[in-house]
């Protein structure tokens, strides 16, 4: 359900405006209306505050990564100058980054000098001054010629698996013409480089320790500073959304308040010297924010509606309509009672151990329960088809499982027929939802055509079922069915666009008929995936079972259990992971495309985000 909103317009004397906004922020209920003539992206002040917020968030994240696992965070210090602390920490991170770069460069130099060992460049220079030139070369082992040892006085000083490192001595001061690569060496000796590396590492360690200390001492304070920056940004944003009137003496602010929170705002208004006007938000207005309020079950599925798009203010909230179908579809797609049990247990664990994911965990419990029920219905548990196993305790119930072996509907699998039927049912439900939506939004006469389609489809379905079931239909019933179909045809062809020319309506009805026939066929058949996914998952599970027991079957029991267990764990784990993804994605796709299309869902609503202080988290988020 969409919470009804009240539109408020405030008229405030400019000297009282800042204080009024601060009080308004404390109530935290007003969603400020955005002005179309204001481009917030061009406001320099806002951009600066956003940038500050981004920098603080980045530094907080980096500090969280460096915080010691067992450290205790110092309590929040609200007097800390957040921006000064930010600058200091950013400088430290920059130093750290520079040191890491130097470390990488130094390591490359050390790697280049390692094969040559630790020699003194001073001695090399002395030798050169004495007329003996040294050149450093490297080449492949196979490329080294033994005559170089005589010709160029080559001395091998190091080697790896493929390369040789050697030095030549020339008394004529000329570089020898040799088919080898001249080594590029550092101007410092290996020992000096290693000393510099040790000093760098020590400096880095000290820096990391300082950052870890800062993380423990200032993280909470920085989080508070980030909240302050965000609050300042929101405050500046509201100032931008404010209109100026009466030669800049008055401030005009518009916003929306949910009706269930109006009392808090009215309590403030009684104390403020502010003129205001309240009225019901118009259903035609596009800028009315949306706050959803549903029962305990439907509320769990609100994130799925938000993922697509919130309804606009004049629409109906589709969440309670699709939530039960989504739950059932998930169960059909996963289709294995054993996997459902895993989902249920994991969700129950998450509900208690991960409180920040509680609503998702509860949804997981419902989805797991649905899967267990479908698994029991079809007799599929961890890839084992219960209707085919020869277990004595199942003997009396095996025939009840809904499987191809036990049932056949016109030669087709019962679960396939069920998937298509439930899909058709959801489409009919969506069409009914559309009739209610249009009637509520613009009037019942505009919904007549859609009502005609809905009743016609139900009418034809009833007739088809009676024919297929070979139920003798009395003549009068046949007249009623066809008479009703005729009335529906009149609604479809002559009531689809009230107020327009009947010929135009007839043409529009023909076009609608084409769309309905082609669209409905595709939409209904699309639900066949519910059967296919459940079947595929079950078959894969049984294949892994066969492989596992075959692998361990030929071995003695005391060792055979090991490969069996490994294959079962790996196989079912992989199958479970793949099936979970499909079981979420495909029911979601059916909801977003088939259900939303048939119920005429438009969406485009903006989420209700009241002007209020940013709440600081109780505990800092862990790594």
């Amino acid at each position, binding site marked *: 359900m969409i919470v009804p909103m009240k539109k408020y317009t405030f008229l405030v004397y400019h000297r009282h405006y800042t204080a009024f906004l601060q009080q308004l922020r404390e109530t935290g209920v007003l969603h400020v209306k955005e002005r179309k003539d204001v481009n917030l992206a061009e406001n320099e002040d806002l951009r600066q505050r956003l940038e500050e917020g981004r920098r603080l968030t980045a530094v907080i994240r980096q500090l969280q990564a460096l915080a010691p696992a067992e450290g205790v965070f110092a309590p929040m210090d609200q007097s800390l100058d957040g921006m000064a602390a930010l600058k200091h920490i950013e400088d430290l991170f920059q130093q750290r980054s520079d040191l890491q770069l130097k470390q990488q460069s130094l390591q490359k130099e050390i790697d280049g000098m390692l094969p040559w060992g630790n020699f003194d460049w001073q001695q090399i220079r002395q030798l050169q001054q004495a007329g003996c030139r040294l050149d450093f070369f490297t080449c492949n082992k196979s490329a080294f010629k033994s005559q170089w040892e005589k010709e160029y006085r080559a001395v091998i000083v190091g080697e790896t698996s493929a390369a040789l490192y050697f030095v030549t001595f020339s008394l004529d001061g000329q570089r020898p013409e040799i088919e080898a690569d001249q080594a590029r060496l550092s101007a410092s000796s290996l020992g000096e480089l290693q000393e510099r590396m040790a000093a760098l590492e020590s400096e880095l360690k000290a820096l990391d320790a300082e950052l870890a200390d800062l993380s423990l001492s200032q993280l909470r304070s920085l989080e508070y500073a980030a909240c302050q920056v965000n609050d300042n940004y929101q405050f500046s944003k509201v100032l931008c959304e404010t209109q100026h009137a009466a030669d800049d003496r008055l401030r005009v602010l518009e916003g929306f308040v949910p009706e269930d929170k109006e009392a808090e705002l009215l309590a403030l208004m009684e104390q403020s010297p502010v003129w205001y006007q309240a009225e019901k938000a118009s259903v035609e207005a596009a800028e009315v924010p949306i706050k959803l309020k549903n029962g305990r079950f439907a509320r769990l599925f609100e994130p799925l509606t938000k*993922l*697509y*798009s919130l309804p606009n203010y004049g629409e109906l909230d589709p969440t309670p309509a699709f939530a039960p179908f989504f739950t059932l579809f998930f169960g059909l797609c996963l289709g294995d009672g054993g996997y459902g049990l895993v989902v249920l247990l994991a969700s129950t664990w998450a509900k208690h151990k991960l409180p920040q994911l509680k609503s998702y965990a509860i949804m997981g419990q419902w989805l797991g329960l649905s899967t267990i029920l479908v698994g029991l219905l079809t007799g599929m548990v961890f890839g084992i088809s219960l209707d085919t196993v020869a277990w004595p305790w199942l003997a009396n119930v095996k025939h009840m499982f809904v499987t191809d072996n036990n049932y056949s509907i016109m*030669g087709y*699998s019962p679960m*396939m027929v069920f998937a298509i039927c439930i899909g058709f049912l959801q489409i009919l439900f969506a069409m009914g939802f559309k009739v209610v939506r249009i009637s509520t939004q613009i009037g019942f006469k505009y919904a007549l055509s859609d009502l005609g389609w809905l009743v016609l489809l139900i009418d034809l379905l009833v007739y088809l079922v009676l024919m297929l079931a070979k139920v003798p239909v009395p003549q009068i019933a046949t007249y009623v069915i066809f008479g009703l179909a005729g009335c529906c045809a009149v609604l479809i062809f002559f009531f689809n666009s009230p107020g327009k020319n009947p010929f135009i309506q007839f043409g529009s009805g023909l076009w609608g008929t084409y769309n309905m026939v082609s669209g409905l*066929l*595709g939409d209904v*058949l*699309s639900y*066949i*995936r519910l*059967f*296919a*996914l459940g*079947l*595929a998952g079950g078959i894969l599970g049984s294949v892994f079972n066969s492989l596992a027991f075959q692998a361990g079957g030929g071995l003695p029991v005391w060792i055979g259990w090991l490969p069996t267990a490994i294959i079962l764990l790996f196989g079912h784990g992989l199958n479970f992971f793949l099936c979970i*993804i*499909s079981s*979420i*994605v*495909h029911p*979601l*796709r059916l909801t*977003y*495309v088939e259900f*939303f*299309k048939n119920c005429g869902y438009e*969406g485009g609503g903006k989420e209700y985000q009241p002007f209020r202080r940013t709440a600081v988290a109780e505990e800092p988020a862990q790594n």
Partner: protein
Amino acid sequence: MTNLLLAYIGIGVMIALSGIGSVFGLTICGNAAIGGLKKRPDAMGTFVLLSALPSTQGIYGFVAYFMIIGKVSATMTAQQAAAVFGASLAVGLVCLLSGLRQGQVCANGINATAAGNNVTAGTMVMAAFPEFYAILSLLFLILVGGTI
């Protein structure tokens, strides 16, 4: 024997082509998703949702197998074998191209989402259009199966 061979070749080609179509489609989307994650790691859920859409064509090929396998037997006639072969080939070819093209649509949606545009819903709707013809081919197979 020849009739049975023809029928099984058709079914094999159908499974192969529809699966290949999904593989190509999923790969195209997966590549786009990895690129998108570099820009917007928080949109992983949306990327997974869009990336998984081209898997449908492989599923349709799988379902089509179940629809048609009941008509395959050692005593089937040449006409029946030809019908199975023709319908299976149709499903395979359509699902191959449908999966490939749907993957391209979804990849564009992923790229647009990574660029900061809210196009998830629109992408899912657009991606349903190439899939519609894969469904039609499945329906064709079901109808043909009903005549043999």
